[in-house]
Protein backbone atom coordinates (compact mmCIF):
# COMPACT_ATOMS: atom_id res chain seq x y z
CA UNK A 1 0.00 0.00 0.00
CA UNK A 2 1.23 3.43 -0.90
CA UNK A 3 0.86 6.68 0.99
CA UNK A 4 -2.21 8.87 0.96
CA UNK A 5 -1.16 12.47 0.35
CA UNK A 6 -3.63 15.27 1.04
CA UNK A 7 -3.05 18.47 -0.92
CA UNK A 8 -5.07 21.31 0.52
CA UNK A 9 -5.36 23.93 -2.24
CA UNK A 10 -8.57 25.50 -0.94
CA UNK A 11 -8.67 29.22 -1.60
CA UNK A 12 -6.04 29.00 -4.30
CA UNK A 13 -7.11 30.06 -7.80
CA UNK A 14 -6.09 28.80 -11.25
CA UNK A 15 -3.48 27.46 -11.82
CA UNK A 16 -2.65 27.19 -8.09
CA UNK A 17 -4.32 23.83 -7.38
CA UNK A 18 -2.60 22.13 -10.33
CA UNK A 19 0.74 23.67 -9.32
CA UNK A 20 0.23 22.28 -5.78
CA UNK A 21 -0.81 18.91 -7.23
CA UNK A 22 2.26 18.72 -9.46
CA UNK A 23 4.52 19.54 -6.50
CA UNK A 24 3.02 16.67 -4.50
CA UNK A 25 3.26 14.42 -7.56
CA UNK A 26 6.98 15.05 -7.82
CA UNK A 27 7.47 13.48 -4.39
CA UNK A 28 4.94 10.69 -4.89
CA UNK A 29 5.53 7.09 -5.93
CA UNK A 30 3.50 4.62 -7.98
CA UNK A 31 0.82 3.20 -5.68
CA UNK A 32 0.36 6.43 -3.74
CA UNK A 33 -2.95 8.24 -3.70
CA UNK A 34 -3.21 12.02 -3.86
CA UNK A 35 -6.31 13.67 -2.48
CA UNK A 36 -6.66 17.20 -3.83
CA UNK A 37 -8.90 19.67 -2.01
CA UNK A 38 -9.78 22.79 -3.95
CA UNK A 39 -12.33 25.52 -4.40
CA UNK A 40 -11.33 26.86 -7.83
CA UNK A 41 -14.23 26.17 -10.26
CA UNK A 42 -11.86 25.03 -13.02
CA UNK A 43 -10.20 22.33 -10.95
CA UNK A 44 -12.31 19.35 -12.08
CA UNK A 45 -11.58 19.79 -15.78
CA UNK A 46 -7.99 20.85 -15.11
CA UNK A 47 -7.22 17.83 -12.93
CA UNK A 48 -8.74 15.50 -15.51
CA UNK A 49 -6.53 17.06 -18.20
CA UNK A 50 -3.49 16.79 -15.91
CA UNK A 51 -4.23 13.13 -15.15
CA UNK A 52 -4.68 12.28 -18.81
CA UNK A 53 -1.40 13.94 -19.73
CA UNK A 54 0.61 12.45 -16.88
CA UNK A 55 -1.11 9.03 -17.29
CA UNK A 56 -2.58 8.84 -13.82
CA UNK A 57 -6.08 7.79 -12.82
CA UNK A 58 -8.86 9.86 -11.30
CA UNK A 59 -10.45 7.60 -8.72
CA UNK A 60 -13.27 9.94 -7.73
CA UNK A 61 -14.48 13.52 -7.78
CA UNK A 62 -16.70 14.63 -4.95
CA UNK A 63 -18.14 17.96 -4.01
CA UNK A 64 -18.96 18.69 -0.42
CA UNK A 65 -20.22 21.95 1.07
CA UNK A 66 -17.01 23.89 1.00
CA UNK A 67 -14.70 22.07 -1.36
CA UNK A 68 -14.16 19.77 -4.30
CA UNK A 69 -12.27 16.59 -3.42
CA UNK A 70 -10.46 14.78 -6.22
CA UNK A 71 -8.79 11.46 -5.51
CA UNK A 72 -6.01 10.45 -7.90
CA UNK A 73 -4.29 7.07 -8.09
CA UNK A 74 -0.65 7.52 -8.98
CA UNK A 75 -0.01 4.91 -11.66
CA UNK A 76 2.82 6.58 -13.50
CA UNK A 77 5.90 8.41 -12.36
Amino acid at each position, binding site marked *: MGKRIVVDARGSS*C*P*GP*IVELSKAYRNAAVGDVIELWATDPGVKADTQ*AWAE*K*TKNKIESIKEDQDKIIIVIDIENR
Partner: protein
Amino acid sequence: MGKLSIIMFSGTMDKFIPLGVLSSAASALGDEVNIFVTGFALLGFMKEKKPLPFPDEFKDMAPALEEGMKRTNTKSWYDMLKEAKESGNVKIYVCSLMASIFNLSKNDLDPIVDDIVGATTFLTQAENGMVLFI
Protein backbone atom coordinates in the same frame (compact mmCIF):
# COMPACT_ATOMS: atom_id res chain seq x y z
CA MET B 1 6.15 15.83 -22.42
CA GLY B 2 5.21 18.84 -24.51
CA LYS B 3 6.71 22.21 -25.17
CA LEU B 4 5.24 25.68 -24.96
CA SER B 5 7.01 28.72 -26.38
CA ILE B 6 5.71 32.20 -25.68
CA ILE B 7 6.69 35.34 -27.55
CA MET B 8 6.10 37.99 -24.89
CA PHE B 9 5.74 41.25 -26.76
CA SER B 10 3.27 43.47 -24.88
CA GLY B 11 4.41 45.72 -22.10
CA THR B 12 1.17 46.20 -20.17
CA MET B 13 0.15 44.55 -16.91
CA ASP B 14 -3.01 42.91 -18.28
CA LYS B 15 -0.90 40.82 -20.68
CA PHE B 16 1.60 39.73 -18.03
CA ILE B 17 -1.07 37.94 -15.99
CA PRO B 18 -1.71 35.27 -18.68
CA LEU B 19 2.06 34.97 -19.14
CA GLY B 20 2.35 33.90 -15.50
CA VAL B 21 -0.74 31.67 -15.53
CA LEU B 22 0.07 29.81 -18.76
CA SER B 23 3.75 29.32 -17.93
CA SER B 24 2.90 27.99 -14.52
CA ALA B 25 0.14 25.67 -15.81
CA ALA B 26 2.37 24.31 -18.60
CA SER B 27 5.17 23.75 -16.15
CA ALA B 28 2.82 21.90 -13.78
CA LEU B 29 1.93 19.59 -16.69
CA GLY B 30 5.62 18.80 -17.05
CA ASP B 31 6.06 20.81 -20.23
CA GLU B 32 9.19 22.65 -21.22
CA VAL B 33 8.50 26.41 -21.42
CA ASN B 34 10.53 28.94 -23.41
CA ILE B 35 9.72 32.61 -23.10
CA PHE B 36 11.15 35.04 -25.64
CA VAL B 37 10.91 38.60 -24.33
CA THR B 38 10.82 41.24 -27.02
CA GLY B 39 9.24 44.65 -27.72
CA PHE B 40 7.99 46.58 -24.73
CA ALA B 41 7.63 43.40 -22.66
CA LEU B 42 11.24 44.16 -21.82
CA LEU B 43 9.86 46.60 -19.23
CA GLY B 44 8.76 43.69 -17.04
CA PHE B 45 12.21 42.11 -17.03
CA MET B 46 14.45 45.01 -16.07
CA LYS B 47 16.51 44.83 -12.90
CA GLU B 48 15.17 48.22 -11.89
CA LYS B 49 11.47 47.66 -11.50
CA LYS B 50 8.82 50.16 -12.46
CA PRO B 51 5.13 49.31 -12.16
CA LEU B 52 3.78 48.04 -15.48
CA PRO B 53 1.11 50.31 -16.98
CA PHE B 54 -2.45 49.29 -17.84
CA PRO B 55 -3.75 50.07 -21.33
CA ASP B 56 -5.84 53.25 -21.29
CA GLU B 57 -9.05 51.50 -22.33
CA PHE B 58 -8.94 49.22 -19.26
CA LYS B 59 -7.57 51.66 -16.71
CA ASP B 60 -10.93 52.02 -14.93
CA MET B 61 -11.02 48.28 -14.32
CA ALA B 62 -7.52 48.03 -12.87
CA PRO B 63 -8.52 48.58 -9.20
CA ALA B 64 -11.23 45.88 -9.40
CA LEU B 65 -8.74 43.49 -11.00
CA GLU B 66 -6.15 44.12 -8.32
CA GLU B 67 -8.73 43.76 -5.56
CA GLY B 68 -10.02 40.51 -7.10
CA MET B 69 -6.53 39.07 -7.39
CA LYS B 70 -5.95 39.73 -3.72
CA ARG B 71 -9.30 38.19 -2.75
CA THR B 72 -8.63 35.02 -4.77
CA ASN B 73 -5.02 34.69 -3.55
CA THR B 74 -3.75 34.98 -7.10
CA LYS B 75 0.00 35.33 -7.16
CA SER B 76 1.64 38.10 -9.15
CA TRP B 77 2.80 37.19 -12.67
CA TYR B 78 6.38 37.48 -11.44
CA ASP B 79 5.89 35.07 -8.55
CA MET B 80 4.11 32.60 -10.84
CA LEU B 81 7.03 32.68 -13.26
CA LYS B 82 9.58 32.43 -10.49
CA GLU B 83 7.85 29.45 -8.94
CA ALA B 84 7.49 27.75 -12.33
CA LYS B 85 11.20 28.27 -12.93
CA GLU B 86 12.13 26.83 -9.57
CA SER B 87 10.10 23.67 -9.99
CA GLY B 88 10.08 23.08 -13.74
CA ASN B 89 11.93 23.55 -16.98
CA VAL B 90 11.19 27.21 -17.74
CA LYS B 91 13.64 29.44 -19.58
CA ILE B 92 13.39 33.17 -20.16
CA TYR B 93 15.30 34.74 -23.02
CA VAL B 94 15.56 38.40 -23.93
CA CYS B 95 15.67 39.33 -27.60
CA SER B 96 19.19 40.39 -28.56
CA LEU B 97 17.95 43.03 -31.01
CA MET B 98 15.93 44.79 -28.29
CA ALA B 99 18.87 44.51 -25.91
CA SER B 100 21.11 46.21 -28.50
CA ILE B 101 18.54 48.90 -29.33
CA PHE B 102 18.22 49.90 -25.67
CA ASN B 103 21.88 49.27 -24.96
CA LEU B 104 21.21 46.63 -22.29
CA SER B 105 23.45 43.86 -21.05
CA LYS B 106 22.49 40.90 -18.88
CA ASN B 107 23.49 43.01 -15.89
CA ASP B 108 20.61 45.43 -16.53
CA LEU B 109 18.06 42.60 -16.55
CA ASP B 110 16.19 40.84 -13.79
CA PRO B 111 18.03 37.72 -12.55
CA ILE B 112 15.01 35.65 -13.65
CA VAL B 113 16.26 36.09 -17.24
CA ASP B 114 18.42 33.18 -18.41
CA ASP B 115 20.10 34.71 -21.42
CA ILE B 116 20.06 37.19 -24.27
CA VAL B 117 19.50 35.35 -27.56
CA GLY B 118 18.54 36.07 -31.15
CA ALA B 119 15.34 35.18 -32.99
CA THR B 120 17.03 32.22 -34.66
CA THR B 121 17.76 30.57 -31.33
CA PHE B 122 14.19 31.06 -30.16
CA LEU B 123 12.67 29.73 -33.39
CA THR B 124 14.89 26.68 -33.24
CA GLN B 125 13.87 26.04 -29.64
CA ALA B 126 10.20 26.54 -30.45
CA GLU B 127 10.21 24.13 -33.36
CA ASN B 128 7.56 21.36 -33.17
CA GLY B 129 5.91 22.81 -30.09
CA MET B 130 3.03 25.14 -29.29
CA VAL B 131 3.75 28.85 -29.81
CA LEU B 132 1.81 31.75 -28.32
CA PHE B 133 2.21 35.44 -29.04
CA ILE B 134 1.18 37.67 -26.15
